[in-house]
Structure formats: structure tokens, C-alpha cells
């Protein structure tokens, strides 16, 4: 295979990953990691480094659109970034002591758990209409987002629970090379009772910084190969831009279905790989 053919294949594959990543709020990494390691047999270090760069592109490209729409809760994102970046830093150390197979099994387990959580709660958003958390008030996390019928106001609850979960999301992000949007969305959805559109977009907003915190370190370690990364950055960026447009136009129900199907497929693939490898 020539460099040109290889580049074109990577470009097409990452376009798809970026599109699905932005559409679901997962980030491109969840699709890219199994694609790179299972299909293209690329070493996990390269895959994680490259994927995180792609994740930054997906998240930033899509977040740009969401932020302008006014759906993103910037204060909530900013506060939770303390947890996710600290977690990311912890993950960059854990990865040194974790085997490839262990990473694959962790990956699959995390995604199956996330998938079950999503299936469990298929009904409409439980928007919190009463003030339940003093911390949320003090941190000014309660907000509103624009909808067709006028702004929807919501209150945030269980801030400490969400914060701890975000540390976990940060660790998983740098350890698995994903944005761990699933964990972020579920923390905000199930624990903090934040409307799905807000949690999806705020998750996207946080993913870039979380990934950047670990990627800058991986860059120094030499995980990021220019020839491999270049087509993936371009492909994911293009895919994310189109995916972001679809999200703004589509309903919550479709989103959730796409979301859980993708999680299930990826989880099975990764666990199979981990077990086969041992």
C-alpha cells in the first residue's frame, strides 16, 4: 500500500468517525480506537495519541456551533473541567502501567455500562424545576437553553457526585484515547438531571480541554505520528462539522437510539479483542 492510498483510507474512516462522534456527543475517539487497532492493526499508543488529537478536532468543531446556539452551559463546563483535566493527568500516569489487553477490556466494560444506563432511561428529560442544590446555586450552574417554545429553565443537582464522575471521565479519556463523552453525558443526565441537549453540548465543550491536557503530554512522549495524524485530523474535522448540523436539527429520541447502538457495537468489539489477546 502506498502512502497516498493509506492517507485516503484514513481520511474516509476518520470522516465517518467524526460524523458519528459529533452526532451523538461521543467524540470521534470511540469509533476511531477500535477502527485503528482492530481494523488497521495500529499499536494502541499511536491510536490513543492520534485519536485524542481527532477528539480535540471533533469537540472544538462541534462545540463552536453549540456555543453560538447558546445551548452549552459554559459555567458548568468550566467548573467540571477541573475534574476532567485532573483526571486526564492521572490517566497519563496509569497508562504506563496498563497492558493493551487490559485497556481493551476496560474500554468495552465502560461502554457496556454506559449503554445499559442509556437504555434504562429512555423516556423524556426529567428537567429539574426546583432548586435542590445549594452548591449549584453558589456556583451559578442553574441555567436555561433556547427552544422553539421559548427558553427552558433547569436546575442542577448532585454537584459533588457529578464532579467525582467527571474525574473518572477524565481518567478514561486519557487512558482510552476517547473524549469519554458517554460518561460525561451520563453523569450530567442521570446524576445532575441536566437536559439531554445541554449535557450533550456541554460535554462536547469540555472534551477539547480534557483531551488537550493529556495530548500535550503524549505529544512530548512521542505518541503522535504526523503521517498518521494528518488525514485523521482533516477527516474528523469535516465529519464533525456535518454531524453538528444534524444534531441541531434532529430530535432527542433519534439521538438516544443512535447513541446506544454505537456504544453496544463498540463495546463487544473491544472486549472480544481484549479476551482474544490474553
Amino acid at each position, binding site marked *: 500500500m502506498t502512502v497516498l492510498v493509506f492517507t485516503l483510507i484514513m481520511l474516509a474512516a476518520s470522516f465517518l468517525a467524526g460524523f458519528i462522534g459529533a452526532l451523538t456527543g461521543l467524540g470521534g475517539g470511540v469509533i476511531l480506537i477500535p477502527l485503528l487497532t482492530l481494523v488497521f492493526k495500529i499499536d494502541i499508543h499511536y491510536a490513543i495519541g492520534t485519536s485524542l488529537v481527532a477528539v480535540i478536532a471533533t469537540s472544538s468543531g462541534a462545540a463552536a456551533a453549540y456555543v453560538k446556539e447558546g445551548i*452549552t452551559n459554559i459555567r458548568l463546563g468550566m467548573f467540571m473541567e477541573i475534574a476532567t*483535566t485532573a483526571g486526564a493527568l492521572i490517566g497519563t500516569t496509569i497508562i504506563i502501567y496498563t497492558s493493551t489487553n487490559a485497556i481493551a477490556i476496560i474500554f468495552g466494560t465502560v461502554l457496556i455500562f454506559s449503554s445499559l444506563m442509556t437504555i434504562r432511561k429512555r423516556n423524556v428529560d426529567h428537567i429539574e424545576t426546583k432548586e435542590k442544590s445549594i452548591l449549584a446555586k453558589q456556583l451559578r450552574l442553574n441555567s436555561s437553553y433556547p427552544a422553539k417554545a421559548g427558553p427552558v429553565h433547569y436546575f442542577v443537582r448532585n454537584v459533588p457526585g457529578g464532579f467525582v464522575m467527571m474525574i473518572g471521565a477524565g481518567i478514561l479519556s486519557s487512558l482510552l484515547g476517547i473524549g469519554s463523552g458517554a460518561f460525561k453525558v451520563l453523569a450530567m443526565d442521570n446524576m445532575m438531571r441536566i437536559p439531554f441537549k445541554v449535557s450533550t453540548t456541554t460535554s462536547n465543550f469540555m472534551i477539547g480541554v480534557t483531551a488537550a491536557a493529556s495530548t500535550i503530554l503524549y505529544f512530548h512522549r512521542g505518541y503522535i505520528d504526523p503521517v498518521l495524524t494528518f488525514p485523521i485530523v482533516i477527516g474528523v474535522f469535516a465529519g464533525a462539522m456535518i454531524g453538528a448540523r444534524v444534531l441541531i436539527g434532529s430530535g432527542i429520541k433519534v439521538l438516544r437510539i443512535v447513541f446506544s447502538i454505537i456504544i453496544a457495537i463498540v463495546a463487544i468489539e473491544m472486549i472480544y479483542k481484549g479476551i482474544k489477546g490474553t
Partner: protein
Amino acid sequence: MKRFITKQYWLDWDIQQLIGNMLRFGVWLSAIVASIGGLIYLIAHGSETAPVYKIYISQPEAFRSIPEVIKGALLFKSSSIMQLGVLLLIGTPIARVLFSFFAFLLEKDYLYVFITFIVIAIIIFSMAGGISV
């Protein structure tokens, strides 16, 4: 509806637009830089056999040190230009955080100035090499 005509609301709205534009600019810039490097690389090496990434080998100093990447890019080395694109992309969300720091300062929201400062400190710590064991 009163809250939607306050100064705070419009300031927040302006900041949202700025952050959105900034992220978009960063991603576009890095995509353009990486594409320039990539195209030059493909013209020169496109017909060669694609590298295999089955076994991990750390990148050479030229591709993992920020000053070396900039040096290489200024000499118009295609791989260094691609890496510069990657660095610009990593820098985009970091620049957004720095911007937020000043935006919260402008809003006199000192609680969030402090919160943003913690995030910046963590990123600087990571740049310095992270947790060494």
C-alpha cells in the same frame, strides 16, 4: 423575561459568540496548516510504501519537542508542518480556557476566574511532564 434583557445576559451572549468563533478559527487554522504540510508530504512521498504502525516507537525529538517542530516548520519540512497543525489544534481549547479567564475577569466573576485558573494550572503541569513516578 426580565433576565434576558440584562447586561449580564448580553455579556454572556457576546462571550459565547467569541468563544464559538475562536474554536472555529483554531480548528480551521490547524486544518489548513496540517493540509499544507500533508499535501507537500504526499507530493514528495505519496508513491512510497506506507509506514506500518504495528509496533510503537517513540517519535524522534524533531516531532515531539515544540521548539523543534516550529524550527522544522520554518525550514518548510512537510512532516514538521503537519505536526505544527497538530500543535495548533491542541492549543485551540487551551486558548479557549485562557480566553475564558479574561472573560470572567471582565465580568468580575472572581469565583470563575479562580476556577479557570485551576484548570490552566493543571494544563501547565501536564505540559511540564505530568505526574512523574
